[in-house]
Protein backbone atom coordinates (compact mmCIF):
# COMPACT_ATOMS: atom_id res chain seq x y z
CA UNK A 1 0.00 0.00 0.00
CA UNK A 2 1.70 3.18 -1.16
CA UNK A 3 1.51 6.80 -0.08
CA UNK A 4 -1.58 8.49 -1.53
CA UNK A 5 -1.31 9.70 -5.10
CA UNK A 6 -0.98 13.46 -5.54
CA UNK A 7 -3.88 15.63 -6.72
CA UNK A 8 -4.24 15.64 -10.51
CA UNK A 9 -2.05 17.65 -12.85
CA UNK A 10 -3.44 21.12 -13.34
CA UNK A 11 -4.69 21.63 -9.78
CA UNK A 12 -3.37 24.76 -8.11
CA UNK A 13 -2.15 24.59 -4.53
CA UNK A 14 -1.76 28.31 -3.84
CA UNK A 15 -4.49 30.87 -4.60
CA UNK A 16 -4.91 31.80 -8.28
CA UNK A 17 -2.74 34.76 -9.26
CA UNK A 18 -0.22 34.20 -6.46
CA UNK A 19 2.64 35.00 -8.86
CA UNK A 20 0.92 37.71 -10.94
CA UNK A 21 3.50 40.24 -12.13
CA UNK A 22 6.47 38.12 -11.00
CA UNK A 23 9.22 36.93 -13.34
CA UNK A 24 10.44 33.40 -12.58
CA UNK A 25 13.55 32.04 -14.32
CA UNK A 26 14.12 28.28 -14.52
CA UNK A 27 17.55 27.12 -15.72
CA UNK A 28 17.30 23.88 -17.62
CA UNK A 29 13.56 24.54 -17.64
CA UNK A 30 12.89 23.19 -21.13
CA UNK A 31 12.52 19.55 -20.21
CA UNK A 32 11.99 17.17 -17.33
CA UNK A 33 11.60 18.40 -13.76
CA UNK A 34 12.52 21.99 -14.65
CA UNK A 35 9.67 22.17 -17.13
CA UNK A 36 7.22 20.64 -14.65
CA UNK A 37 8.24 23.16 -11.98
CA UNK A 38 7.94 26.03 -14.48
CA UNK A 39 4.40 24.96 -15.38
CA UNK A 40 3.23 25.26 -11.75
CA UNK A 41 4.59 28.82 -11.48
CA UNK A 42 2.96 29.68 -14.82
CA UNK A 43 -0.38 28.33 -13.60
CA UNK A 44 -0.21 30.86 -10.73
CA UNK A 45 0.35 33.80 -13.06
CA UNK A 46 4.15 34.10 -13.22
CA UNK A 47 5.90 35.38 -16.32
CA UNK A 48 8.29 32.53 -17.09
CA UNK A 49 11.85 32.60 -18.37
CA UNK A 50 12.96 29.21 -19.72
CA UNK A 51 16.69 29.17 -20.27
CA UNK A 52 19.00 26.37 -21.29
CA UNK A 53 22.02 25.48 -23.35
CA UNK A 54 20.25 24.35 -26.51
CA UNK A 55 17.42 26.11 -28.24
CA UNK A 56 15.74 22.78 -29.01
CA UNK A 57 15.41 22.25 -25.25
CA UNK A 58 14.22 25.68 -24.14
CA UNK A 59 11.71 25.74 -27.00
CA UNK A 60 10.01 22.67 -25.48
CA UNK A 61 9.50 24.52 -22.22
CA UNK A 62 8.31 27.67 -23.97
CA UNK A 63 5.79 25.66 -25.99
CA UNK A 64 4.50 23.85 -22.88
CA UNK A 65 3.87 27.14 -21.07
CA UNK A 66 2.23 28.72 -24.11
CA UNK A 67 -0.01 25.66 -24.31
CA UNK A 68 -1.53 26.49 -20.89
CA UNK A 69 -1.86 30.15 -21.81
CA UNK A 70 1.16 31.40 -19.88
CA UNK A 71 3.49 34.30 -20.58
CA UNK A 72 6.96 33.06 -21.40
CA UNK A 73 10.32 33.93 -22.92
CA UNK A 74 13.15 31.59 -23.79
CA UNK A 75 16.86 32.29 -24.01
CA UNK A 76 20.24 30.65 -24.37
CA UNK A 77 22.20 30.01 -21.19
CA UNK A 78 25.37 28.07 -20.55
CA UNK A 79 25.58 28.13 -16.75
CA UNK A 80 29.31 27.29 -16.88
CA UNK A 81 30.07 30.65 -18.49
CA UNK A 82 29.59 33.77 -16.31
CA UNK A 83 29.40 35.98 -19.41
CA UNK A 84 26.59 33.83 -20.77
CA UNK A 85 24.79 34.14 -17.41
CA UNK A 86 24.98 37.94 -17.55
CA UNK A 87 23.82 38.03 -21.18
CA UNK A 88 20.93 35.70 -20.38
CA UNK A 89 19.69 37.86 -17.49
CA UNK A 90 19.94 40.92 -19.79
CA UNK A 91 17.92 39.21 -22.47
CA UNK A 92 15.20 38.02 -20.07
CA UNK A 93 15.04 41.39 -18.32
CA UNK A 94 14.49 43.10 -21.68
CA UNK A 95 11.74 40.64 -22.60
CA UNK A 96 9.88 40.25 -19.28
CA UNK A 97 11.35 42.61 -16.70
CA UNK A 98 13.67 41.93 -13.73
CA UNK A 99 13.75 38.36 -12.43
CA UNK A 100 12.07 37.94 -9.00
CA UNK A 101 12.54 34.20 -8.53
CA UNK A 102 15.43 32.03 -9.74
CA UNK A 103 15.19 28.23 -9.95
CA UNK A 104 18.68 26.74 -10.35
CA UNK A 105 17.66 23.48 -11.97
CA UNK A 106 20.28 22.99 -14.70
CA UNK A 107 22.40 19.93 -13.99
CA UNK A 108 24.38 17.16 -15.62
CA UNK A 109 25.17 13.72 -14.32
CA UNK A 110 26.12 10.23 -15.41
CA UNK A 111 27.19 7.17 -13.51
CA UNK A 112 30.82 6.16 -13.62
CA UNK A 113 33.09 4.61 -10.97
CA UNK A 114 35.53 7.26 -9.78
CA UNK A 115 38.68 5.39 -10.79
CA UNK A 116 37.38 5.39 -14.35
CA UNK A 117 36.24 9.02 -14.26
CA UNK A 118 38.31 11.38 -16.39
CA UNK A 119 39.31 14.77 -15.00
CA UNK A 120 37.23 16.24 -17.80
CA UNK A 121 34.13 14.34 -16.64
CA UNK A 122 34.68 15.61 -13.10
CA UNK A 123 35.17 19.18 -14.32
CA UNK A 124 32.13 19.14 -16.57
CA UNK A 125 29.66 17.96 -13.94
CA UNK A 126 31.00 20.13 -11.11
CA UNK A 127 31.14 23.12 -13.51
CA UNK A 128 27.49 22.80 -14.42
CA UNK A 129 26.11 21.81 -11.01
CA UNK A 130 28.12 23.77 -8.45
CA UNK A 131 29.78 26.61 -10.39
CA UNK A 132 26.70 27.18 -12.55
CA UNK A 133 24.51 27.45 -9.48
CA UNK A 134 26.86 30.02 -7.95
CA UNK A 135 27.15 32.11 -11.15
CA UNK A 136 23.37 32.29 -11.55
CA UNK A 137 22.71 32.99 -7.85
CA UNK A 138 25.36 35.73 -7.89
CA UNK A 139 24.01 37.39 -11.03
CA UNK A 140 20.47 37.26 -9.61
CA UNK A 141 21.53 38.71 -6.25
CA UNK A 142 23.61 41.52 -7.79
CA UNK A 143 20.59 42.67 -9.76
CA UNK A 144 18.23 42.38 -6.78
CA UNK A 145 20.67 44.31 -4.58
CA UNK A 146 21.03 47.06 -7.19
CA UNK A 147 17.27 47.53 -7.19
CA UNK A 148 17.05 47.19 -3.37
CA UNK A 149 14.45 44.50 -3.84
CA UNK A 150 14.24 41.01 -2.36
CA UNK A 151 13.79 37.74 -4.14
CA UNK A 152 13.85 33.98 -3.80
CA UNK A 153 16.28 31.37 -5.09
CA UNK A 154 15.53 27.66 -5.15
CA UNK A 155 18.30 25.22 -6.03
CA UNK A 156 17.54 21.71 -7.14
CA UNK A 157 19.77 19.42 -5.10
CA UNK A 158 19.84 15.70 -4.43
CA UNK A 159 19.30 13.45 -1.38
CA UNK A 160 22.73 11.87 -1.99
CA UNK A 161 24.34 15.25 -1.29
CA UNK A 162 23.97 14.32 2.37
CA UNK A 163 25.16 10.73 2.12
CA UNK A 164 27.67 10.68 -0.71
CA UNK A 165 26.85 9.10 -4.04
CA UNK A 166 29.02 6.13 -4.89
CA UNK A 167 29.09 5.86 -8.68
CA UNK A 168 28.29 9.55 -9.18
CA UNK A 169 30.93 11.14 -6.98
CA UNK A 170 31.21 14.26 -9.18
CA UNK A 171 27.51 15.04 -8.93
CA UNK A 172 27.35 14.14 -5.22
CA UNK A 173 30.28 16.43 -4.39
CA UNK A 174 28.77 19.26 -6.42
CA UNK A 175 25.32 18.80 -4.88
CA UNK A 176 26.94 18.67 -1.43
CA UNK A 177 28.54 21.97 -2.35
CA UNK A 178 25.11 23.35 -3.27
CA UNK A 179 23.78 22.46 0.20
CA UNK A 180 26.71 24.26 1.80
CA UNK A 181 26.36 27.26 -0.52
CA UNK A 182 22.67 27.41 0.41
CA UNK A 183 23.61 27.81 4.08
CA UNK A 184 26.27 30.46 3.40
CA UNK A 185 24.20 32.58 1.03
CA UNK A 186 21.12 32.38 3.25
CA UNK A 187 23.01 34.10 6.05
CA UNK A 188 24.80 36.55 3.75
CA UNK A 189 21.65 37.68 1.94
CA UNK A 190 18.92 37.40 4.59
CA UNK A 191 19.39 41.10 5.50
CA UNK A 192 18.64 41.93 1.85
CA UNK A 193 15.45 39.83 1.81
CA UNK A 194 16.93 37.40 -0.69
CA UNK A 195 16.01 33.90 0.39
CA UNK A 196 17.72 30.74 -0.82
CA UNK A 197 16.64 27.16 -0.27
CA UNK A 198 17.40 23.81 -1.89
CA UNK A 199 14.92 21.14 -2.90
CA UNK A 200 16.34 17.62 -3.13
CA UNK A 201 14.05 15.32 -5.11
CA UNK A 202 14.15 11.55 -4.85
CA UNK A 203 13.14 9.41 -7.83
CA UNK A 204 10.91 11.47 -10.11
CA UNK A 205 10.98 9.70 -13.48
CA UNK A 206 11.40 12.13 -16.34
CA UNK A 207 10.01 10.85 -19.58
CA UNK A 208 11.28 13.80 -21.56
CA UNK A 209 14.66 14.24 -19.96
CA UNK A 210 17.31 15.45 -22.35
CA UNK A 211 20.45 14.61 -20.43
CA UNK A 212 22.21 11.38 -19.61
CA UNK A 213 20.36 8.99 -17.37
CA UNK A 214 21.93 8.47 -13.97
CA UNK A 215 21.51 4.73 -14.12
CA UNK A 216 24.18 2.82 -15.98
CA UNK A 217 22.49 1.60 -19.11
CA UNK A 218 19.35 3.55 -18.26
CA UNK A 219 17.46 5.39 -20.96
CA UNK A 220 14.07 6.90 -21.61
CA UNK A 221 13.23 3.71 -23.50
CA UNK A 222 13.60 1.43 -20.49
CA UNK A 223 12.16 3.89 -17.97
CA UNK A 224 9.22 1.63 -17.15
CA UNK A 225 11.61 -1.17 -16.25
CA UNK A 226 13.61 1.26 -14.08
CA UNK A 227 10.42 2.37 -12.31
CA UNK A 228 9.37 -1.23 -11.66
CA UNK A 229 12.75 -1.96 -10.07
CA UNK A 230 12.84 1.24 -8.04
CA UNK A 231 9.27 0.82 -6.79
CA UNK A 232 10.41 -2.15 -4.73
CA UNK A 233 13.06 -0.01 -3.03
CA UNK A 234 11.08 3.11 -2.05
CA UNK A 235 9.28 3.06 1.33
CA UNK A 236 6.53 5.24 -0.16
CA UNK A 237 5.66 2.46 -2.62
CA UNK A 238 5.40 4.91 -5.47
CA UNK A 239 7.66 7.23 -7.38
CA UNK A 240 7.32 10.99 -7.23
CA UNK A 241 5.28 13.02 -9.70
CA UNK A 242 7.02 16.11 -11.03
CA UNK A 243 4.06 18.35 -10.18
CA UNK A 244 4.65 17.57 -6.49
CA UNK A 245 8.03 19.29 -6.81
CA UNK A 246 6.27 22.13 -8.61
CA UNK A 247 3.76 22.69 -5.80
CA UNK A 248 6.46 22.69 -3.12
CA UNK A 249 8.58 25.08 -5.22
CA UNK A 250 5.74 27.56 -5.60
CA UNK A 251 5.17 27.46 -1.82
CA UNK A 252 8.85 27.91 -0.91
CA UNK A 253 9.33 30.91 -3.22
CA UNK A 254 6.09 32.63 -2.13
CA UNK A 255 5.52 35.16 0.65
CA UNK A 256 3.89 32.36 2.70
CA UNK A 257 7.45 31.09 3.23
CA UNK A 258 9.08 34.47 3.77
CA UNK A 259 10.84 33.32 6.96
CA UNK A 260 12.31 30.17 5.45
CA UNK A 261 15.84 30.48 4.15
CA UNK A 262 18.92 28.29 4.19
CA UNK A 263 16.97 25.07 4.27
CA UNK A 264 17.47 21.85 2.32
CA UNK A 265 14.22 20.02 1.71
CA UNK A 266 14.23 16.36 0.78
CA UNK A 267 11.12 15.19 -1.10
CA UNK A 268 11.62 11.51 -1.75
CA UNK A 269 9.00 9.36 -0.02
CA UNK A 270 11.42 8.69 2.88
CA UNK A 271 13.82 6.86 0.58
CA UNK A 272 17.09 8.35 1.84
CA UNK A 273 16.13 7.58 5.45
CA UNK A 274 16.20 3.85 4.82
CA UNK A 275 19.17 2.10 6.34
CA UNK A 276 20.64 -0.49 4.09
CA UNK A 277 21.97 -2.80 6.78
CA UNK A 278 20.19 -5.78 5.29
CA UNK A 279 21.01 -4.96 1.69
CA UNK A 280 23.81 -6.89 0.05
CA UNK A 281 26.80 -4.70 -0.72
CA UNK A 282 28.07 -4.77 -4.28
CA UNK A 283 31.16 -2.90 -5.38
CA UNK A 284 30.18 0.00 -7.59
CA UNK A 285 32.48 -1.20 -10.39
CA UNK A 286 30.81 -4.60 -10.39
CA UNK A 287 27.27 -3.23 -10.30
CA UNK A 288 28.11 -0.69 -13.01
CA UNK A 289 29.52 -3.36 -15.33
CA UNK A 290 26.67 -5.76 -14.61
CA UNK A 291 23.97 -3.19 -15.36
CA UNK A 292 25.75 -1.97 -18.49
CA UNK A 293 25.90 -5.55 -19.76
CA UNK A 294 22.23 -6.11 -18.96
CA UNK A 295 21.25 -2.92 -20.78
CA UNK A 296 23.33 -3.90 -23.80
CA UNK A 297 21.73 -7.36 -23.86
CA UNK A 298 18.25 -5.82 -23.62
CA UNK A 299 19.03 -3.40 -26.43
CA UNK A 300 20.41 -6.25 -28.54
CA UNK A 301 17.29 -8.36 -28.15
CA UNK A 302 14.98 -5.53 -29.27
Amino acid at each position, binding site marked *: *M*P*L*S*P*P*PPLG*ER*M*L*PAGSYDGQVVMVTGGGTGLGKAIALEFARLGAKMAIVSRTEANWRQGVDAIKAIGGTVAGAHLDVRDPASVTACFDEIEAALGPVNVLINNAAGNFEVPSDRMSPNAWRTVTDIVLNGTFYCAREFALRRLAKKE*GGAILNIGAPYAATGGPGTSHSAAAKGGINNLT*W*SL*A*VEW*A*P*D*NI*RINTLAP*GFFPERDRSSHSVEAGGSAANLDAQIATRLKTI*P*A*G*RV*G*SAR*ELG*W*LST*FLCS*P*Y*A*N*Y*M*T*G*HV*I*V*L*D*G*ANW*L*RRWHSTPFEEIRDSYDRRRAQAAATAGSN
Partner: protein
Amino acid sequence: MALAASYPQGTPMLAADVFAGQVAVITEANDPIGQAIAAELSRGGAKVVPLEVDVRDAAAVKRAFDAIEAANGPISILVNHFANRADAPVEVMSVEAWQDITHRVLDGTFNTCRELGLRRIADGRPATVVNGGTPYDITGGAGRAAAVAAGAGVMNLTKSLAVEWAPYDIRVNGIAPGYVAGSEAGPVSEGDLAVTVPGGRLCEPHEVAWFVAYMCCPFAAYLTGHTFVLDGASWQRPGRSPPLFEPIRDRYDAALKG
Protein backbone atom coordinates in the same frame (compact mmCIF):
# COMPACT_ATOMS: atom_id res chain seq x y z
CA MET B 1 17.20 45.25 6.76
CA ALA B 2 15.30 42.05 7.22
CA LEU B 3 13.38 39.31 5.55
CA ALA B 4 10.10 40.77 4.35
CA ALA B 5 6.95 40.18 6.36
CA SER B 6 4.72 37.38 5.11
CA TYR B 7 1.08 37.88 4.29
CA PRO B 8 -0.94 38.98 7.33
CA GLN B 9 -2.42 36.48 9.75
CA GLY B 10 -5.62 35.00 8.36
CA THR B 11 -4.57 35.12 4.70
CA PRO B 12 -5.76 31.87 3.10
CA MET B 13 -3.08 29.72 1.50
CA LEU B 14 -4.82 26.42 0.77
CA ALA B 15 -8.35 25.85 -0.50
CA ALA B 16 -11.08 26.21 2.14
CA ASP B 17 -12.03 22.53 1.81
CA VAL B 18 -8.54 21.01 1.70
CA PHE B 19 -9.05 19.26 5.07
CA ALA B 20 -12.83 18.89 4.86
CA GLY B 21 -14.12 15.96 6.89
CA GLN B 22 -10.79 15.46 8.70
CA VAL B 23 -10.27 15.39 12.46
CA ALA B 24 -7.05 16.96 13.76
CA VAL B 25 -5.67 16.77 17.30
CA ILE B 26 -2.98 19.03 18.70
CA THR B 27 -1.12 18.85 21.99
CA GLU B 28 -0.54 21.99 24.07
CA ALA B 29 -2.73 24.00 21.71
CA ASN B 30 -3.01 27.07 23.92
CA ASP B 31 0.15 29.04 23.17
CA PRO B 32 0.39 31.35 20.12
CA ILE B 33 1.95 28.69 17.89
CA GLY B 34 -0.58 26.04 18.89
CA GLN B 35 -3.44 28.47 18.36
CA ALA B 36 -2.14 29.49 14.94
CA ILE B 37 -1.78 25.87 13.82
CA ALA B 38 -5.30 25.08 15.03
CA ALA B 39 -6.65 28.14 13.21
CA GLU B 40 -4.94 27.22 9.92
CA LEU B 41 -6.15 23.59 9.99
CA SER B 42 -9.65 24.87 10.79
CA ARG B 43 -9.46 27.30 7.88
CA GLY B 44 -8.92 24.27 5.63
CA GLY B 45 -12.06 22.63 6.97
CA ALA B 46 -10.62 20.28 9.62
CA LYS B 47 -12.34 19.69 12.94
CA VAL B 48 -9.54 20.59 15.38
CA VAL B 49 -9.61 19.11 18.88
CA PRO B 50 -7.05 19.94 21.57
CA LEU B 51 -5.44 16.79 22.98
CA GLU B 52 -5.67 17.64 26.66
CA VAL B 53 -4.01 14.68 28.30
CA ASP B 54 -0.80 13.79 30.12
CA VAL B 55 1.05 12.45 27.11
CA ARG B 56 3.51 10.63 29.41
CA ASP B 57 0.70 8.20 30.21
CA ALA B 58 0.07 5.88 27.25
CA ALA B 59 -3.16 4.52 28.74
CA ALA B 60 -4.48 8.04 29.22
CA VAL B 61 -3.55 8.87 25.61
CA LYS B 62 -5.53 5.85 24.46
CA ARG B 63 -8.57 6.92 26.48
CA ALA B 64 -8.33 10.45 25.09
CA PHE B 65 -8.16 9.15 21.51
CA ASP B 66 -11.16 6.91 22.25
CA ALA B 67 -13.19 9.86 23.52
CA ILE B 68 -12.21 12.18 20.66
CA GLU B 69 -12.92 9.57 18.00
CA ALA B 70 -16.25 8.59 19.61
CA ALA B 71 -17.36 12.22 19.40
CA ASN B 72 -15.79 13.24 16.07
CA GLY B 73 -14.75 10.21 14.02
CA PRO B 74 -11.27 8.92 13.13
CA ILE B 75 -8.31 11.24 13.73
CA SER B 76 -6.28 11.80 10.55
CA ILE B 77 -4.02 14.70 11.59
CA LEU B 78 -1.83 14.70 14.71
CA VAL B 79 0.28 17.71 15.69
CA ASN B 80 2.68 17.21 18.59
CA HIS B 81 3.38 20.74 19.71
CA PHE B 82 5.27 21.55 22.89
CA ALA B 83 5.40 25.03 24.35
CA ASN B 84 8.76 26.50 25.31
CA ARG B 85 10.10 24.94 28.49
CA ALA B 86 12.26 26.42 31.19
CA ASP B 87 15.47 24.46 31.47
CA ALA B 88 18.72 24.64 33.42
CA PRO B 89 22.42 23.88 33.11
CA VAL B 90 22.95 20.15 33.41
CA GLU B 91 24.97 20.30 36.64
CA VAL B 92 22.12 22.00 38.45
CA MET B 93 19.38 20.02 36.71
CA SER B 94 17.68 17.44 38.88
CA VAL B 95 17.20 13.92 37.59
CA GLU B 96 13.49 14.49 38.05
CA ALA B 97 13.56 17.58 35.83
CA TRP B 98 15.42 15.65 33.12
CA GLN B 99 12.88 12.85 33.31
CA ASP B 100 9.89 15.16 33.32
CA ILE B 101 10.99 17.00 30.18
CA THR B 102 12.20 14.00 28.21
CA HIS B 103 9.13 11.98 29.18
CA ARG B 104 6.82 14.69 27.95
CA VAL B 105 8.63 15.58 24.75
CA LEU B 106 10.12 12.28 23.55
CA ASP B 107 8.03 9.61 25.26
CA GLY B 108 4.90 11.73 24.86
CA THR B 109 5.48 12.06 21.12
CA PHE B 110 6.04 8.32 20.89
CA ASN B 111 2.81 7.65 22.80
CA THR B 112 0.61 9.86 20.63
CA CYS B 113 2.22 8.70 17.36
CA ARG B 114 1.92 5.07 18.35
CA GLU B 115 -1.73 5.47 19.34
CA LEU B 116 -2.55 7.09 16.00
CA GLY B 117 -0.51 4.55 14.05
CA LEU B 118 -2.20 1.58 15.72
CA ARG B 119 -5.60 2.94 14.81
CA ARG B 120 -4.91 3.96 11.22
CA ILE B 121 -2.96 0.82 10.37
CA ALA B 122 -5.91 -1.20 11.72
CA ASP B 123 -8.56 0.61 9.70
CA GLY B 124 -6.44 1.39 6.62
CA ARG B 125 -7.13 5.12 6.66
CA PRO B 126 -4.35 7.55 5.72
CA ALA B 127 -3.01 10.03 8.27
CA THR B 128 -0.36 12.70 8.74
CA VAL B 129 1.72 13.63 11.77
CA VAL B 130 3.69 16.81 12.40
CA ASN B 131 6.13 16.76 15.31
CA GLY B 132 7.32 20.04 16.76
CA GLY B 133 10.94 20.80 17.52
CA THR B 134 13.55 23.55 17.53
CA PRO B 135 16.77 24.17 15.57
CA TYR B 136 18.63 23.33 18.81
CA ASP B 137 17.54 19.75 18.23
CA ILE B 138 20.13 19.69 15.43
CA THR B 139 22.90 21.72 17.01
CA GLY B 140 22.53 21.03 20.70
CA GLY B 141 21.44 23.83 22.98
CA ALA B 142 23.48 24.81 26.02
CA GLY B 143 21.14 25.56 28.89
CA ARG B 144 18.28 23.49 27.55
CA ALA B 145 19.94 20.09 27.28
CA ALA B 146 16.92 18.04 28.29
CA ALA B 147 14.41 19.59 25.92
CA VAL B 148 16.77 19.55 22.94
CA ALA B 149 18.04 16.02 23.59
CA ALA B 150 14.41 14.94 23.64
CA GLY B 151 13.78 17.06 20.54
CA ALA B 152 16.69 15.39 18.76
CA GLY B 153 15.10 12.08 19.64
CA VAL B 154 11.80 13.30 18.19
CA MET B 155 13.52 14.39 14.97
CA ASN B 156 15.06 10.94 14.69
CA LEU B 157 11.75 9.23 15.54
CA THR B 158 10.13 11.25 12.76
CA LYS B 159 12.56 9.68 10.30
CA SER B 160 12.12 6.13 11.57
CA LEU B 161 8.33 6.35 11.59
CA ALA B 162 8.30 7.85 8.09
CA VAL B 163 9.94 4.70 6.74
CA GLU B 164 7.98 2.31 8.95
CA TRP B 165 4.59 3.80 8.13
CA ALA B 166 4.94 4.95 4.52
CA PRO B 167 3.42 1.61 3.39
CA TYR B 168 0.29 2.49 5.41
CA ASP B 169 0.04 5.99 3.93
CA ILE B 170 0.85 7.61 7.27
CA ARG B 171 3.21 10.52 6.69
CA VAL B 172 5.37 11.80 9.55
CA ASN B 173 7.12 15.18 9.33
CA GLY B 174 8.40 17.86 11.67
CA ILE B 175 8.62 21.62 12.11
CA ALA B 176 11.46 23.35 13.95
CA PRO B 177 10.85 27.09 14.28
CA GLY B 178 13.47 29.45 15.65
CA TYR B 179 12.38 32.44 17.75
CA VAL B 180 8.64 32.94 17.39
CA ALA B 181 6.91 36.19 18.29
CA GLY B 182 4.94 35.89 21.52
CA SER B 183 6.51 32.58 22.46
CA GLU B 184 9.91 33.48 23.90
CA ALA B 185 9.69 33.39 27.67
CA GLY B 186 13.33 34.30 28.43
CA PRO B 187 14.68 37.54 29.85
CA VAL B 188 15.78 38.91 26.43
CA SER B 189 13.29 41.17 24.66
CA GLU B 190 11.99 40.26 21.22
CA GLY B 191 13.75 43.28 19.77
CA ASP B 192 17.08 42.11 21.17
CA LEU B 193 16.40 38.60 19.88
CA ALA B 194 15.64 39.90 16.38
CA VAL B 195 19.08 41.45 15.98
CA THR B 196 20.64 38.02 16.54
CA VAL B 197 18.76 36.57 13.54
CA PRO B 198 20.23 36.99 10.01
CA GLY B 199 16.62 37.42 8.84
CA GLY B 200 16.36 40.44 11.17
CA ARG B 201 12.99 39.56 12.65
CA LEU B 202 11.19 36.86 14.61
CA CYS B 203 8.96 34.23 13.05
CA GLU B 204 5.23 34.88 13.25
CA PRO B 205 3.08 32.03 14.58
CA HIS B 206 0.96 31.95 11.41
CA GLU B 207 4.09 31.41 9.32
CA VAL B 208 4.70 28.21 11.28
CA ALA B 209 1.07 27.26 10.74
CA TRP B 210 1.27 27.58 6.94
CA PHE B 211 4.12 25.05 6.91
CA VAL B 212 2.17 22.67 9.13
CA ALA B 213 -0.87 22.99 6.86
CA TYR B 214 1.28 22.30 3.79
CA MET B 215 2.80 19.19 5.37
CA CYS B 216 -0.67 17.82 6.18
CA CYS B 217 -2.29 18.60 2.82
CA PRO B 218 -2.60 16.32 -0.23
CA PHE B 219 -0.22 18.48 -2.28
CA ALA B 220 2.53 17.15 0.03
CA ALA B 221 1.53 13.51 -0.49
CA TYR B 222 5.15 12.47 -1.21
CA LEU B 223 6.68 14.37 1.72
CA THR B 224 7.55 12.23 4.72
CA GLY B 225 10.40 12.05 7.23
CA HIS B 226 11.29 15.68 6.76
CA THR B 227 11.67 18.37 9.42
CA PHE B 228 11.43 21.96 8.22
CA VAL B 229 13.68 24.45 10.01
CA LEU B 230 12.01 27.86 9.98
CA ASP B 231 14.42 30.22 11.67
CA GLY B 232 15.53 33.02 9.34
CA ALA B 233 18.88 31.27 8.74
CA SER B 234 19.95 31.49 12.39
CA TRP B 235 21.30 28.00 12.92
CA GLN B 236 23.59 28.13 9.88
CA ARG B 237 25.60 31.01 11.30
CA PRO B 238 29.04 29.79 12.30
CA GLY B 239 29.48 33.13 14.07
CA ARG B 240 32.72 34.63 12.84
CA SER B 241 32.35 37.56 15.23
CA PRO B 242 29.71 36.57 17.74
CA PRO B 243 29.38 38.20 21.15
CA LEU B 244 31.88 37.01 23.74
CA PHE B 245 31.22 33.50 24.92
CA GLU B 246 29.39 33.38 28.19
CA PRO B 247 29.42 30.13 30.16
CA ILE B 248 25.88 28.88 30.40
CA ARG B 249 25.94 28.84 34.19
CA ASP B 250 26.78 32.57 34.34
CA ARG B 251 23.86 33.34 32.07
CA TYR B 252 21.59 31.14 34.14
CA ASP B 253 22.69 32.71 37.40
CA ALA B 254 22.26 36.22 36.00
CA ALA B 255 18.77 35.34 34.81
CA LEU B 256 17.88 33.95 38.23
CA LYS B 257 19.10 37.14 39.96
CA GLY B 258 17.44 39.37 37.35
